[in-house]
């Protein structure tokens, strides 16, 4: 599970086209990384695909930062 953070960060870098150094754990997708609401929907889809996890809409709404995503996946991804 140790690579979850790295895999999440890589998805964020690829989808938002931002520099790796900016994708720190506390970075907010919208406020810090320039995402819009559609980008965040697509990010969640990418997390679902990468980690084989389903993220319901009410949970997705609370995934606002890199840390939120890592925490959700650590708690919910199949081992």
């Amino acid at each position, binding site marked *: 599970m140790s690579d979850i953070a790295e895999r999440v960060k890589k998805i964020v870098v*690829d*989808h*938002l*086209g931002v520099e790796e150094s900016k994708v720190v754990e506390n970075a907010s997708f919208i406020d810090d990384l320039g995402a819009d609401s*559609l980008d965040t929907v*697509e990010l969640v*889809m990418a997390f*679902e*695909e990468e980690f084989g996890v*389903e993220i319901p809409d009410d949970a997705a709404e609370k995934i606002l930062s890199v840390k939120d995503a890592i925490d959700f996946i650590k708690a919910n991804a199949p081992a």
Partner: protein
Amino acid sequence: MRRVVVTGLGLVTPLGVGHTVNWERLIAGQSGIRAITGFETSDLASKVAGQVPRGTGDGDFNADSFVPPKDQRKMDDFILYAIAAAQEAIRDSGWTPQTDEERERTGVMVGSGIGGLPGIADGAVTLHEKGPRRLSPFFIPACLINLASGHISIQHGFKGPNHSVVTACSTGAHAIGDAARLIMWDDADVMVAGGTEAAVSRLGVAGFAAMRALSTNFNDTPEKASRPYDKDRDGFVIGEGSGVVVLEELEHAKKRGATIYAEIVGYGLSGDAHHISAPAEDGNGGFRAMSGALKRAGLTPADIDYVNAHGTSTPLGDEIELGAVKRLFGTAMDKLAMSSTKSAIGHLLGAAGAVEAIYSIKSINHGIVPPTLNLENPSESCQGVNLVAKVAQERRVRAALSNSFGFGGTNASLVFKEFA
């Protein structure tokens, strides 16, 4: 009425990217028609198309030059081509609005005949195979036709009229004509106008093939497939790309010392009220679009030196258009040059009218009329008509008329005049 001139040109076509490259290749008699690449064609009746050359060589289309890679998946190719053509046209015009008022007086009207057909096809497959939760949030905005105009306005900050035309193969001509009228009516001072299309996909080719509209006899010799007015023509060749012009109110252009390529003096529109895809036999729709454009221009047929024909290389359509041109021009046919540049690039559908408008303008600027390629055995009705067979001709073009006719029986003609 306010006068409108053309101050910027932008092209993405099967002959390449850029209006200068396009013109050089067009008048050299080069063809952009090739065997289709990018998808399976073994079970398709037509295996040739005019596809935009991709790569990093001279005149090649490199998407990264126009849109950051991360944003490319948010748009179908028809939007990408429009963005690229608009960037060239706007740069070419030198128009960079500085104030809010200038931005609010600059609008965009770029249409498409079909829009994001490849994206819709992919989206339907995703829905079917993986379910609704796997559909991208960018699926809809990537396919919507007016998002070409939307993206252009966002990139350049143009806050004037934002509009989009959808009239099948007349789209590009209608967009330029209607945008010019917005300037004439003082709704804007500058309009970025044109058409775009990227429907060379399995679904697009299969769909037109189902109508028996495409050429099928030249799959082994793609460059010969588009042959308007030739006895062996057997349907159109599908193409893709975009043509965009910057239209500007005359005094606005003069005041900033802009290069003026031509004045748009005529625009005529009509409907056939006849059939969903076949043109009316009497050619009356095209005749009325052309005569309406001439009337608006205050010109007679004898003032027109070049007609860029709709000329799709379908036996029925070519003959009907030629009949209408003969009827309108009468004795002025003797001095008229008429050609179909679809012979070199195929039929760009919603982009065709805009691309061909630009070729018409360049014929005025350069004093050269582009050829009708592959015209080896003209049909009988072509006798005595100068269709500029195979080789470009040098001649002064005082004014040029460009025809576009679309499915549903929608017709548009534009007239451009040299600006002295």
